[in-house]
């Protein structure tokens, strides 16, 4: 699987996320409360809604539509109406750049 250069580390505020589109797919990249970076699929598993407009609280991302919640470290769906887990992707940081393996 190729590693893709997604963004600079300071493109994402702490405890926040951004949207990253690549190769016809959309991803969400997180700057976690632990200072680490994470990546998941960019859209909620409940409906076709981008997570990038949602709120990050601790290790949880909230979908902006119906407040389905996911642990962005594991992708686990934590609150209804989201019942299906989110896909996650490996992330590495090199020279202040965030890379994801897609």
């Amino acid at each position, binding site marked *: 699987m190729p590693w893709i250069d997604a963004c600079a580390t300071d493109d994402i505020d702490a405890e926040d996320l951004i949207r990253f589109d690549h190769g016809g797919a959309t991803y969400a990249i997180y700057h976690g409360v632990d200072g680490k970076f994470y990546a998941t699929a960019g859209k909620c598993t*409940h*409906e076709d809604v981008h997570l990038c*407009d949602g*709120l990050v609280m601790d290790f949880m991302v*909230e979908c902006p*539509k*119906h*407040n389905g919640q996911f642990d962005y470290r594991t992708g686990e769906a934590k609150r*209804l109406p989201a*019942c299906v887990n989110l896909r996650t992707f490996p992330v590495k940081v090199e020279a202040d750049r965030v890379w994801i393996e897609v």
Partner: protein
Amino acid sequence: MGNRDYDLFGPDAKRAVESGLTAAEWYHSDVPRKVMKELMARSDGPAMRDTVILYGAMIVLAGLGIALWPTWWSAPFWLAYGVLYGSASDSRWHECSHGTAFRTPWMNDAVYQIASFMIMRNSATWRWSHARHHSETYFVGRDPEIAIMRPTEMAKLIVNFFGILDVLKFIPNLVQNALTGPSAAERTFVPQAEWPKVQRVAQVHLAIYLATGALALAMGSILPLMVIGLPRLYGAWHHVMTGLLQHGGLADNVVDHRLNSRTVYMNPISRFIYWNMNYHVEHHMFPMVPYHALPRLHEIIKHDLPAPNRSIAEGFAEMWPAIKRQLAHQDYFLKRDLPATAKPYREDFQLYVPGMMPAPAAE
């Protein structure tokens, strides 16, 4: 479009999916991400304060009603208690179903369960119907929470100010849910994994009503029902009044909440009962902004919205003639002017579905 079929299995429901309406993207006013994050931030403080006031007032009012029962002196206390039980529970149910009222999840859930019981909604079913209401607001055949269908049955609308139709629908549904789980229509929007929960919730609610009824029989008095159950009728008027204003007389089958939702300035008591849902365009556009931040959101995006109605009375004065007109012309809707500072309505949004929307019928 002409005659509308609101059946969840009907031709309009099918058309909304096939035409792409259900997949279309909704319009959002621009709000910088940093500001939006501040608006969405959760806290327990405001909702804890409001919940203590609400339940405290209910206990005091019901206590006075019971103490003065059966004299007429108890009536004003029941009327006030009824509004808190039969109307404030609607907004608590609503906000807590979004999970935004409190920061702490168990607090949201606790108030959600209590409010669902009072407003006579199955907490496991209605979470899903409301999710659909937000994804597909006023899409004919898809939104299960359309309060004013066209043509409006005026008699029904008026009778329901006392919750009568809601309760008449609720009782057989409750019994069916308790015995066999969700109905066929409910199964279209409640995922299968949740069906047992629907049944369990119905059984708990039914057991409480049966116990209350048994107590009333044993006492030979309706007093227990004045506390549990009947206030859903005699106190419903406020939530019906505010609920009709949310979307009444406005467009259906559009993907711009400025066209299908209404913001109305209200007095502080109504806003407490309604938990700021008078900022209804704002709420639909950004449902993750908690109720206590909606006035701030309103200030930030009002330049992009139609002017709000300045009172409940003004809202009704605008809405009522439109509803009456829809009796004869189902396609008619109020298309309110936008201020010069707003981004215009995108006609391609409204006309997204060929044949679903007529040319704008505004006057």
